[in-house]
């Protein structure tokens, strides 16, 4: 960092929602100089321009801890650069890319490469997730500790489950020594024969379905292994009522178990198939579930059983999503609807306070990834998002910065929108426009 105080901004009258300190202040003035928050009465602030924050929320350190950036290896779907732009556009200041690239991120060198890519691009902080097993094949543990030393913040074979219970046990007990969490994509592959949720609509449309049990039997297994090992377990994209029961049980037993949901599972049910029919834009794993499960997921977030909301951002090329429902790949491009989707699902209907929803986008992922951040206090890195909570907007994937335009939220009206993003004191997005010209490296 430069020692000369050369850049800064004042933000006046903004509502600071800071889950790291549990502070929700109605109208606050604050200042940022050279990448960090400073006291509002810092005399040097007067040199810098003021921004009217009235009517806006300021939320520090929104982290999407489940994204697929497709690089290395599948850059026609997304690159690190386009993924980072999508994050900035969506109001996200940190991301944890999943390692299921080609090749798989399963060595310390690849972890370093990811961190360096993130710094070079300078739009968003990157917290790599390394593979649990070598090449995510589920056969032998990858070098978890050496990856951890280079900056991997959690481990996952996401895209597929750690099928072997013995290996899952090893991973949980081993990673607990760093400590780091093992994130499992829970799916019993022998039960998961379908392309969408097993239910009336799939059966009418003649699309093979996957029951919720395919996920839940493995979540229960994982919870039991978390109890056995004392390891840190995080369940990715939870989508079943029985999984919620398992997670609740784990929490009552004080096991180190956390869980996440995606906005698309909170906003949509398998009734989306009635609208989209055979368009595989709805094809996602785990699938969009029944209306009753969607309701249960919403209430589980409210009850605190769910710690994190993450997008499972899974961009695909339009040509791939234009195949038949059988051949098209799973996934929804979700980074640019993460914040608005969470607000629309939980705050707009009055189910939860802004603070509690923002906690699951900020402090929640920090805790799972073992990151520390003090909140909006003098000296803390100025990573923040300004949100206009009243803005109503229609999702138009053509406006995405991500290469992936695949989302069944297309055409939906969301309530609340990130209007500016700042990382380390520099605007990375203002009014929907990503600002990546002349950014210097992040540190």
């Amino acid at each position, binding site marked *: 960092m430069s020692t000369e105080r050369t850049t800064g901004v004042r933000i006046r009258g903004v509502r600071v929602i800071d889950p790291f300190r549990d502070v929700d202040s109605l109208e606050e003035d604050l200042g940022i100089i050279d990448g960090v928050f400073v006291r509002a009465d810092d005399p040097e602030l007067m040199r810098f321009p003021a921004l009217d924050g009235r009517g806006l929320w300021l939320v520090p350190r929104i982290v999407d801890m489940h994204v697929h950036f497709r690089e290395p290896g599948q850059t026609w779907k997304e690159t690190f650069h386009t993924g980072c732009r999508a994050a900035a556009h969506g109001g996200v200041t940190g991301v944890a890319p999943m390692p299921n690239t080609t090749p798989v991120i399963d060595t310390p060198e690849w972890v370093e490469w990811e961190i360096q890519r993130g710094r070079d691009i300078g739009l968003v902080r990157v917290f790599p997730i390394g593979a649990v097993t070598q090449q995510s094949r589920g056969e032998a543990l990858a070098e978890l500790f050496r990856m951890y030393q280079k900056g991997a913040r959690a481990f996952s074979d996401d895209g597929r489950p750690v099928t072997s219970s013995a290996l899952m046990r090893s991973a949980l007990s081993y990673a607990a020594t760093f400590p780091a969490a093992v994130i499992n994509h829970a799916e019993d592959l022998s039960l998961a024969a379908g392309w969408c949720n097993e239910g009336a609509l799939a059966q009418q*449309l003649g*699309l093979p379905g996957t029951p919720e049990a395919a996920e839940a039997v493995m979540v229960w297994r994982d919870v039991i292994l978390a109890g056995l090992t004392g390891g840190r377990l995080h369940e990715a994209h939870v989508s079943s009522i029985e999984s919620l029961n398992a997670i609740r049980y784990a929490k009552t037993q004080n096991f180190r178990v956390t869980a996440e949901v995606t906005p698309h599972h909170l906003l949509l049910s398998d009734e989306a198939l009635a609208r989209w029919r055979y368009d595989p834009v709805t094809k996602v794993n785990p699938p969009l579930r029944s209306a009753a499960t969607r309701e249960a997921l919403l209430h589980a977030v409210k009850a605190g059983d769910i710690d994190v909301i993450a997008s499972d951002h899974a961009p695909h090329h339009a040509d791939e999503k234009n195949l038949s429902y059988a051949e098209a790949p799973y996934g929804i491009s979700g980074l640019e609807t993460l914040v608005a989707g969470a607000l629309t699902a939980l705050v707009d209907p009055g189910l939860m306070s802004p603070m509690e929803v923002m906690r699951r986008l900020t402090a929640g992922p920090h805790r799972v990834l073992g990151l520390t951040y003090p909140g909006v206090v003098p000296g803390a890195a100025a990573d923040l998002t300004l949100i206009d909570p009243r803005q109503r907007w229609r999702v138009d994937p053509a406006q995405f910065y991500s290469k992936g335009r695949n989302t069944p939220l297309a055409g939906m009206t969301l309530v609340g929108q990130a209007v500016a993003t700042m990382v380390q004191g520099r605007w990375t997005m203002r009014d929907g426009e990503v600002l990546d010209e002349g950014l210097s490296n992040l540190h």
Partner: protein
Amino acid sequence: MPRALIEDLVDGALRVKAEGLGAVRSRRQALAGRSVVNCFFEPSTRTKTSFELAGKYLGADVVNFQTRGSSLEKGETLEDTVRTLEALALDVLVIRHAVSGVPERLAQAVTIPVINAGDGFHEHPTQGLLDVLTVYEARGRIDGLHLVIVGDILHSRVARSDLWGFLTLGAYVTLVGPPQLLPSAWHHERLRVTPYLADALKEADAVQVLRIQKERQSLAGLPSWEEYRAQWGITRERAEQLGDHVLIMHPGPQNRGVEIDSEVMMRTASQISRQVTNGVAVRMAALSWVLGGADEH
């Protein structure tokens, strides 16, 4: 399909049959100069031949577009498939595809009419129509009758088309088969779903015996074909307990000794061959309808 359309098409098929299938061709040439393409992305003999005959009896030019082994296979986007098909400049496309929904998506994208000749586990509308026609000819009505469909319901497009067709026309339908091959979540006041065959057959007016699709391994959850026959096969003994008035149908081709016994086939031979004839009549009605000639017969 709305009730009125089903009735129109069945009436159309009945008129075709009254005139004699081949007679239409010589007298009317209703579809002379029109072209029909059979585009079967999945092997089929009956349905394909049946559409071919139907088109030819109506005087249309019928082209069988070879898709197996061609580029219209795995990995081609539906948009590109559409472009290829439209470039063939045809009047109507008859599409069979192994994946549910592909005919529907292609139909949305092309400007010419598409007839679904069976898609995945979804539907097989002309099969449903011909089954309605077959039962209607035998019993003079559909309303209030009781149809039993036996087999792997979950993976059967025939079951779905029969189900929607008969329910729409006021029949009662019972779906019966191994519990792991039954739908778990369908609700209709005239629909019953049960694993118990004997129970289901008590009230039956007609029984549709589905082909057990060994090639799809849809019986993976069952111990053996013998075990299937023991619980859900239409055996000689079970058939004898049914009254003579009960129709036994099978969409073919049959696995004798699995879902249906040879002796039962003997009894029902005439019925099953009538299904084949009715298939041509129904497809003639369907082709006429989509090409706007339905009222001319």
